[in-house]
């Protein structure tokens, strides 16, 4: 049942293979694609290479692509001059907790929306869609007051909890569970499984690929979040990486050497996770709840 992980059959391949007339098209498409790939890849590459240059070489024209001397001083300076280890830990806690809770909440709601039918579930679907139309930013100040009244101000929990509900996640699961045959459900019911057990023992394991896809997407969202942590966290010990990096940019005189090092350091975990799990993102059939 690992439908979602397998690649769809490439229907167009047989038509194209072995035709010499396709060569110009191949050259044309490939060169445009690779030109764009260079345009998209270069800024990050330039940035990472710059971060390896000594502070003195950063601003001396002529600029060179490769550093003349490789140095990690930007990184060590960034690590020591800010409470970077703490920022890392805080961000990791926020991203991990939010991701786990998001998966649980989204899988449960997505399953309910796919396999049960009632007027209040339809109403709830509309509520979930409304959350994409009216994101947290539009309710920034009152949402802050709610968090404060709940006693979650200046705590990592205050960053995590409001972020758990997501329309994208809920609809990803809904879309998946709609494709799971109802026979499976009825069979389990005949066998006497309780409704909840069917969800936990049969349906949830089936949705493993969706869980991984959402895990990566959600982890990325929370790792890169800026505005909401900024509003909720006040104590520098609670800061996340994005707030930490933004505070370097906000300084009167930007220390570029430290900024480059800190920025690259903060990207590393996500890039690593992505490279390991990229097939789950790439093959994801994300259509934002569009088709049934």
């Amino acid at each position, binding site marked *: 049942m690992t439908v979602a992980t397998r690649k*769809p059959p490439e229907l*167009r391949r047989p*038509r194209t293979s072995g035709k010499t007339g396709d060569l110009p098209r191949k050259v044309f*498409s*490939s060169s445009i*694609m690779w030109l764009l*790939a260079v345009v*998209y890849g270069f*800024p*990050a590459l*330039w*940035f990472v290479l*710059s971060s390896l240059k000594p502070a003195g070489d950063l*601003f001396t*024209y002529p*600029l060179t692509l490769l550093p003349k001397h490789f140095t990690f001083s930007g990184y060590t300076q960034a690590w020591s001059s800010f409470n970077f280890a703490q920022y890392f830990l805080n961000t990791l806690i926020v991203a991990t907790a939010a991701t786990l809770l998001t998966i649980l*909440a*989204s899988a*449960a*709601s997505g399953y*309910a929306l796919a*396999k049960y*039918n*009632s007027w209040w*579930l339809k109403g709830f679907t509309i*509520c*979930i869609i409304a*959350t994409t*139309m*009216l994101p947290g*930013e*539009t*309710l*920034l*100040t*009152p949402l802050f007051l*709610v968090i404060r009244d709940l006693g979650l101000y200046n705590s990592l929990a205050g960053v995590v909890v409001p972020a*758990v*509900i997501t329309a994208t996640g*809920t609809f990803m699961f809904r879309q998946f569970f*709609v494709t799971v045959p*109802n026979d499976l459900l009825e069979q389990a019911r005949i066998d006497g499984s*309780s*409704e909840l057990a069917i*969800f936990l023992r049969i349906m949830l394991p089936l949705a493993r690929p969706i869980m991984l896809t959402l895990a990566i997407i959600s982890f990325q969202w929370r790792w*890169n979040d*800026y505005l909401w942590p900024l509003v909720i966290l006040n104590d520098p010990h609670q800061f996340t990486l*994005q707030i930490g*990096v933004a505070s370097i*940019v906000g300084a009167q005189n930007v220390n570029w050497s430290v900024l480059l090092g800190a*920025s690259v350091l*903060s990207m590393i975990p996500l890039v690593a996770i*992505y490279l390991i799990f*990229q097939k789950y993102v*790439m093959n*994801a059939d*994300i*259509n934002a709840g*569009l088709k*049934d």
Partner: protein
Amino acid sequence: MVDSDQRPRPSPGDSADRPPEPIRRGPFTRVRRRNSYVLTPLLLISANLILFALFFIWPAAIGLYYSFTSYTGVGSAPPVGLQNYQNLFHDADFYAALLRTFVYAACVVPTTFVASLGVAYLLISPYAKGKPLARTIFFVPWLISPIIAGVIWRWIFGENFGLVNFIIIKLGGDAVPWQSNANLSLIIVIIAATWGNTAFNMLIFTAALKNVPTAYYEAAELDGANAWQKFRRITLPAIAPTSFIVILLTTLGAMKEYPLFRAINDGGPGTENNLIVQYIYKTGFRNAHIGYASAASFVLMFILMIIAGIQLMINRRRES
């Protein structure tokens, strides 16, 4: 429990909610069964339901209330009627922020649309070679947070040290004031946003493009259609619903952009590139005018609803 007597309406894809017919048990078990068709989904959506009530309904309600007061976050909230809204409509800063937000959205939505559809089209094309690696490269910007993306583009477009100005000078031009000119500064943000938005929208487009029946293309090829005609007459209409979603989400995203501006120019030079969210954040949190900021929030929410409504209407008209 209210719903326990109402049998779910059997719809084509959803026959599963009916109790299995062949099994005949006592009336007691059937009632319990039917109750579990209400209780289980309720339990399953409970987490999201509570979160929705706590973090959407509640803030919306108190936000609406505070927008009619001059609340500062502490103490009492003296009601001021429509004063906040009246002040807002006479606030030049608010108008400037709103206008700048519209300009930004009007620029970034088309660039994002073209870039992500173009990349998606190339990535499913059978002619392009080396797609797996290219796909990974296109995806890297998605991993980079808006703050870091802002730093990257700020670094490249630095006035005295940036790569772009270095190349311009090398080619015999004069250094371009990327930071001190508001419009040039906005262009950097648009480039950075397009760069960052492409990957995710590309993913949505890829899923849609794969679902266009190949028979259409084959038929068009027999009729002698060229690549552009096929794209214009087959691909674009076939993915129209997806295009709609991408445009809608990108517009909503652009209307609430802040971190990129924070990193690239902090809304500057001066306050020329302050967008609406930055305006709300500043008045609400730095100046503690919570009532006033809530009013601004509701104006933004109202605008977003209008935008979503207009786009939905256009989409529906095109479909019919």
